[in-house]
């Protein structure tokens, strides 16, 4: 794997609030409170000024407790949710010169189909459970403009065999599959249009350990074979340790610490990160 210094994805001052805010929580001082919700109007500040860069070929891990904004960040980057404010640039789209949040829905759809792939924690969100695995992949390909059924079938079987789904089960619907298999179908679907970036949101949560290991090994092979850049959200530090090159630590919608993964695990600076690391041991 060659080392490149291109920034593939850049997010700047990303903010997401649920609620309209009030005079008491809109001032910058009030927002620096420990909690990320306003007790007066009930507004939740899920993301507050999140900025980071993702470089070619790396796996960027994001850790944090439930409610720290990890998944919201992923949803915002995949346009599942609108942001309140912020910037988002992709090097693969117009050289990273435009803020994608300000583009039309059409452009956003195009970015989702061609430039990003996402694997959800819950396969129900990422897959149509009652359609066959091949159709699930074909659906994503159709949205990217493919129309030739033969080509789509071939590509879908190729991807499914890459994620170790046996050939005789490819036409089955994911609802008949085990959790690990559903996750693997999701991964195949995310890869179908050769996106440069894969967003992985808690992909091993709720799977038993041996199945987790298979999914993680698959991620490693995919990284090697497709040279793909990934963002990996997890609250499992073992997963982060094994896969991530760099790690961001989130708390209350902010990035409180960032560093090389071994540095975060061995020399955590913030009180919360220390608590997190000590919980592991």
């Amino acid at each position: 794997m060659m080392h490149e210094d291109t920034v593939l994805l850049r997010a700047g001052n990303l903010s997401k609030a649920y609620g309209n805010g009030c005079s008491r929580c809109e001032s910058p001082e009030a927002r620096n409170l420990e909690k990320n919700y306003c007790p007066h109007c009930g507004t939740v500040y899920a993301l507050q000024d999140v900025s980071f860069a993702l470089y070619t070929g790396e796996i960027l891990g994001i850790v944090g407790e439930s409610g720290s904004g990890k998944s919201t960040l992923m949803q915002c980057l995949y346009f599942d949710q609108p942001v309140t404010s912020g910037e988002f640039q992709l090097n693969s789209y117009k050289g990273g010169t435009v803020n994608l949040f300000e583009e039309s829905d059409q452009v956003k759809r195009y970015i989702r189909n061609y430039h990003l792939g996402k694997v959800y924690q819950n396969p129900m969100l990422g897959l149509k459970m009652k359609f066959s695995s091949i159709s699930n992949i074909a659906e994503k390909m159709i949205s990217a403009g493919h129309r030739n059924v033969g080509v789509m079938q071939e590509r879908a079987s190729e991807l499914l065999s890459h994620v170790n789904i046996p050939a005789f089960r490819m036409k089955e619907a994911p609802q008949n599959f085990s959790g690990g298999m559903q996750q693997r179908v999701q991964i195949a679907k995310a890869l179908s249009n050769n996106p440069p970036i894969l967003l992985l949101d808690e992909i091993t949560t709720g799977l038993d350990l041996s199945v987790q290991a298979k999914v993680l090994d698959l991620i490693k092979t995919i990284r090697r074979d497709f040279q793909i850049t990934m963002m990996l959200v997890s609250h499992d530090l073992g997963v982060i340790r094994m896969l991530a090159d760099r790690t961001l630590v989130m708390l209350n919608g902010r990035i409180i610490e960032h560093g090389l993964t071994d540095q975060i695990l061995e020399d955590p600076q913030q009180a919360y990160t220390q608590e997190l690391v000590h919980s592991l041991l």
Partner: protein
Amino acid sequence: MKYMLKIDNLGKSFIIHDLQKHIHGCRGISLALQHGEFIGITGRSGSGKSTILKMVYRTYLPDEGEIWYDSERWGWIQLSQRAERDIMYLRMYEIGYISQFLNVLPRMTAREIIQQAVREKGSSEAEAAAEAVRMLTHFELDRELWDSYAATFSGGEKLRLNIARAMVKRPRLLLLDEPTASLDMHSKMRVRQLIEQLKREGTTMLGIFHDIEFMRGLCDREFKMNQGEAVI
């Protein structure tokens, strides 16, 4: 004379927020390593030897002081202030680290581990395969073990594998954190041979050793430490 690594007044303490405690790591460390030189750090357990090495490798962030390194790609740089991405590059191509702990990647065979290390450097598949055979043979790892999971190995076997993995990358600067701690005499000699070979090839090394006998004749200089400070 230009140095490969120059450490100036380096200090580190660990803050444990939970217990509201400061733990003293090391203080006022200055050290200069010339190109091709091998310095051995000695001292009792807890005297801060590993802390220095880990700061050079950026596993620890220093509190004060500077670490200058003469990189092939960027020239004279300050390691502790460099971007994470650049440190990733240096770890892949320029700086190697051998730990005293026996961590190996799970679900990978010995052969795969070595091959992956060679391939990360940009070599072809065939080169990697040949290099893996050469390395595994050198460290006299049982042939039956080559294609079994490294996680099932004994302590000495894991250690030899870790050393092999770091050495195939041919780093310019190699950090050795007690690489021979749990090896028998014969394996130690094997490691020593390889270190000598690397030294002949011009690798600069900074190592920690408990075994003074082993170190003698291998290191150019000794750097003694006591309670986090250098002994002069």
